[in-house]
C-alpha cells in the first residue's frame, strides 16, 4: 500500500487534502499526507501579510519605497533580529523566555564597562564583546538549569532571571552611565559597509549562525525533537534536560550579542537597552510561524515576523499615522493580516492554542 503509484496521484490531486480532526497537540494523529502543519500555513500567511503590507505602504508613500528606507528598515530590525534568533531556540523547545530585557540590560552595561569607556579604565575591545556574549550565555544557562533541574515552567524561571539580570544591570550602572568610547564598537552603528550599517551585517551573520545551529547541530535538531514531543525524545534516549539547557544557553548568547549591538547604537551602557524587545521578539517569532507549542517554525520563519513588525512600525510612521492611533492600528493590522492569510485554510488547521 505504500507503493508510489497509489500514493502519488493522491498527493498530486490538489492542494493538501482536508485532514480532519487535525493532528492532536502532540501531532500523533492519523494519516496526514502532506506537511500541511499549522506552522507551514502560518509561515505562508505571514509572508503573504508581509508582502501585502510592503505593497500597500509602497503605494501609499513614495518615501517608503526609497532605497534609504530599505536601509533604515534593515538597520532598525538588526537588534530585534538577533534577539529573535535566540528566542527562537527557546520557542522551538516549546518553552518561553521572558528574561530578554534583564539579560540585555546586564550585558549592555557589561560591554560598556569592558570596552574603552568613560568609567572604568578597561579597554578590552573584541575580548570585551566576547565576554559579554559569554555572560549572556551564562544567564541562558541559568534559565535552562533552573527550568530543567527544578522542573518548573520556563515562564517563571525566565521571569526570575529577568529580575536578576535587571538587578545586576542596576548594580553595574551605579548611578552613572558608562559612555562607550571604543571606536571599533561605535563603528558598528555609525560605519557602513555596502550601504548597510555594520551592525546589520553582524545581525545577518547572527541569523546565518542561528540557522546553521538549527539545522546542523544537535542543539538545533534536538530542540525540534523536544518541542515536537518531549516524552518521545526522552524515550529515544535523548538527554532532554541537557539539550534544553543548551538551547537556553545558545539563546542567551544571542541576547548578549544583541546587547552589544544595542550598546553600540545607543553609545552608552543603558539598563533599559532591551526595553520592549522581549515582547516584540516573541511576537515576531509567533507571527512568523515559530509557534509557542514548540517544534514548529525556525530561525528563518521568525525573521519574517521580525520584518512584519519592523515594516509595520516604519510604514505607519512614514504614512503619518498619528502617534495616538499607531498602537491601535498596529494591533489590528497584525491580527487582520494573519487572520486574512489564514482564513482560506483555516479548516486544515489543527489545534490552535
Amino acid at each position, binding site marked *: 500500500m505504500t507503493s508510489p503509484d497509489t500514493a502519488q496521484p493522491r498527493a498530486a490531486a490538489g492542494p493538501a487534502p482536508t485532514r480532519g480532526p487535525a493532528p492532536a497537540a502532540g501531532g500523533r494523529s492519523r494519516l496526514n499526507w502532506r506537511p500541511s502543519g499549522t506552522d507551514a500555513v502560518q509561515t505562508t500567511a505571514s509572508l503573504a501579510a508581509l508582502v501585502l503590507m510592503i505593497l500597500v505602504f509602497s503605494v501609499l508613500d513614495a518615501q517608503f519605497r526609497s532605497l534609504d528606507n530599505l536601509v533604515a528598515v534593515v538597520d532598525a530590525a538588526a537588534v530585534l533580529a538577533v534577539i529573535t534568533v535566540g528566542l527562537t531556540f527557546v520557542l522551538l523547545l516549546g518553552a518561553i523566555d521572558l528574561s530578554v530585557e534583564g539579560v540585555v540590560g546586564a550585558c549592555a552595561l557589561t560591554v560598556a564597562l569592558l570596552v574603552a569607556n568613560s568609567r572604568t579604565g578597561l579597554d578590552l575591545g573584541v575580548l570585551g564583546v566576547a565576554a559579554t556574549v559569554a555572560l549572556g550565555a551564562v544567564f541562558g544557562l541559568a534559565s535552562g538549569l533552573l527550568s530543567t533541574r527544578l522542573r518548573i515552567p520556563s515562564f517563571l524561571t525566565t521571569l526570575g532571571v529577568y529580575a536578576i539580570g535587571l538587578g545586576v544591570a542596576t548594580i553595574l550602572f551605579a548611578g552613572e552611565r558608562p559612555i562607550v568610547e571604543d571606536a571599533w564598537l561605535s563603528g558598528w552603528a555609525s560605519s557602513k559597509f555596502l550601504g548597510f550599517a555594520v551592525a546589520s551585517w553582524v545581525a545577518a551573520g547572527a541569523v546565518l549562525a542561528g540557522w546553521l545551529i538549527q539545522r546542523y*547541530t544537535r542543539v538545533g535538531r534536538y530542540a525540534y525533537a523536544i518541542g*515536537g514531543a518531549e516524552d518521545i525524545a526522552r524515550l529515544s*534516549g535523548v538527554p532532554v534536560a541537557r539539550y534544553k539547557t543548551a538551547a537556553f544557553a545558545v539563546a542567551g548568547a544571542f541576547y548578549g550579542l544583541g546587547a552589544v549591538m544595542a550598546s553600540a547604537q545607543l553609545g552608552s551602557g543603558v539598563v533599559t537597552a532591551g526595553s520592549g524587545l522581549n515582547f516584540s521578539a516573541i511576537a515576531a517569532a509567533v507571527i512568523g510561524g515559530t509557534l509557542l507549542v514548540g517544534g514548529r517554525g525556525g530561525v528563518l520563519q521568525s525573521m519574517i515576523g521580525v520584518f512584519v513588525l519592523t515594516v509595520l512600525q516604519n510604514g505607519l510612521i512614514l504614512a503619518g499615522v498619528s502617534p495616538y492611533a499607531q498602537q491601535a492600528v498596529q494591533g489590528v493590522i497584525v491580527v487582520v493580516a494573519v487572520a486574512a492569510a489564514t482564513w482560506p485554510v483555516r479548516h486544515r488547521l489543527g489545534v490552535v492554542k
Partner: protein
Amino acid sequence: MSAPVLSVEGLTKRFPGVTALDGMSFEVRPHEVVGLIGENGAGKSTLLKSLVGLVAPDAGTIRVGGEAVRLRGVAHAGSVGIGMVFQEQSLVPNLTVAENILLGAERSAVRGGVYRWRTLRALAQEQLDKIGSTIDPGARTDTLTFAQRQLVEVAKVLTIEERITGEPVVLLDEPTSVLERDEIATLFAQIERLRTRASVVFVSHRLDEVLEVSDRVYVLRNGKVVAEVDPHEVDATDLHHLLIGRESGGSHYHDDAQRDCDGAPVRLRVDRLSTAGCKDVSLDIRAGEVLGVAGVQGSGREDVCRALFGAIRASGGRVTLDDRPFRLGSPRSAVRAGIGYVPSERRTDGIIPPMSVAENLSMAHVGEVCSGPVLQPRRERGLVEQWVRRLGIKTPSPQTPIGTLSGGNQQKVVLARWMIDDDLRLLILDHPTRGLDVGAKSDVYALIRDLAAAGCAVLLLSDTLEETIALSHRVVVMKDGAVVTTVETPKGAKPDPVVILEEMV
C-alpha cells in the same frame, strides 16, 4: 539449552489500585522469539517497559547476559542491548523519518558537531531497506500514515543491530495491530531474519500470529505467568482458553445475536457525499443495522465517517437522518442529532487521559447527570457505576484517571459514553477493537449486537475483514474514494472474505 540472554525473576510492580506485575518470572534465550499474550491489563506492556528502564520495579531482578542490572532508562537499556517498539506510537511528528530512526543514536552521522544529512539519510535508508520499505527517509513523519509510522518504528528499533556487538533483544509491543496483511508478512520476515542475530519478544492480541512466529509463548494473567506453552503443540482455541481462564461460550462474534432488520426504516441516507478524500459516496443504513465499510488505507472510508460526524468538512452531498434533512456541521451538532463516534486513535482523540473515568464517560451527554445547569454528583456516580458494572469495566474507582486503565477498558468507557444516550440513533465505530484482547473484543462485539438489537444504526470500520463481515448486515466496499460495491452479509450466509478483498484492491 544455552543460558538466557535476558531473564527476570520475581518482578513486581504496583500502581495505586492495581498490581501490574506480581512476582513475574520469565526468560529469553539466544536467537529465540518469545510470544507474550494476555488480556488487556495483564501486565505485558509494564513488563516490557521495565525491561527498558521506563518502569522501576518494586521488587525482583532483571538479568542481562546473566548479570543483574538496574536499568536507568531507554538509553541505558539500549547500551546493554535491549530495544523496544512501544505500543503507543513514539515518533517525533515534526522530524524527518531519518532523524526519527536515528534519534539519540545519530553519532555516526554527526562529525565535529555538524549534522551530515546525507549520511543520516543513508543510514536511515539502510534500516528501511531491511524491512523492504519504500518510505522516503526525508519525509516529515507526520505526513506518514499510521501504518507507515509503525514500520518506521520497527526500522528504528533495528538500529540496535549495528549498535550492539553482543546479543541484542528486541521487544515488540503489539507491532501488528495497525498493519495490513502484507506489512505483517514483511514484519514476520524481519523477525525471522533477526532471529539469526538477536532475540525477540513479541506481544500481540492476534493469537494466530503469536503461534506463527514464536518459539515459546508465555501466557500472562494478572501480572503473573500462568502458562508457558510450545506453539507447535497448541492451537488458537487452547490459547484462548488459557488466556481468559474460562471456556469461551458460543461463537466469538456472537453470530446468534445478529437480528434481522429488513423491515426497519432507513435511519441515515447519504447522497453523493464528497470530501477531500472521497467522492460522491451514497449509502443508507437502516435502524438496527450494522453497515460495515471495507477498504484499504486511502480508500476514503475514514473520510466518510468523519464527514458524517462533522469532524471534517464535506464539500458536497445531502444527508437525511430519519427522513429529515441533516446538515453536516460540527461534532457538536452531530451529537445533538443523536450520532456518536468512536475514533480510532483512542489516546489522542478518544479519551482525556488525566480526567476520571466518570468524567470521560459522561462528557458527551452531560445533560444526563445535570439538573438545569447544575451537575448532580450523586446521579453521576449512580449512572457511572451502573455502566461500569454493565460493561464490566475494570477500574479501581470511577474517579480513577482513565489514562491508567488498560486499552480495552478505556474503549468500553468510550462506548459507554454514547450508550448512556437513550436516543442514540447512529453510532460510528472507527476501528473499535484496535489493541483489544480477545476477551475485550468479544465484549465489544456483544455491545455492538445489543446496540443494533435496540434499534441503533451502526456504521463500522474495522481492523480485519473477518470482523467486518461477521458483525455487519451489509458491507459497502470502497476504493479510491468511491463505493465500488455492496455485499450482503446476513446471518448464517456470511461470504468468504476473499470475495470482498478482490473488490478492495
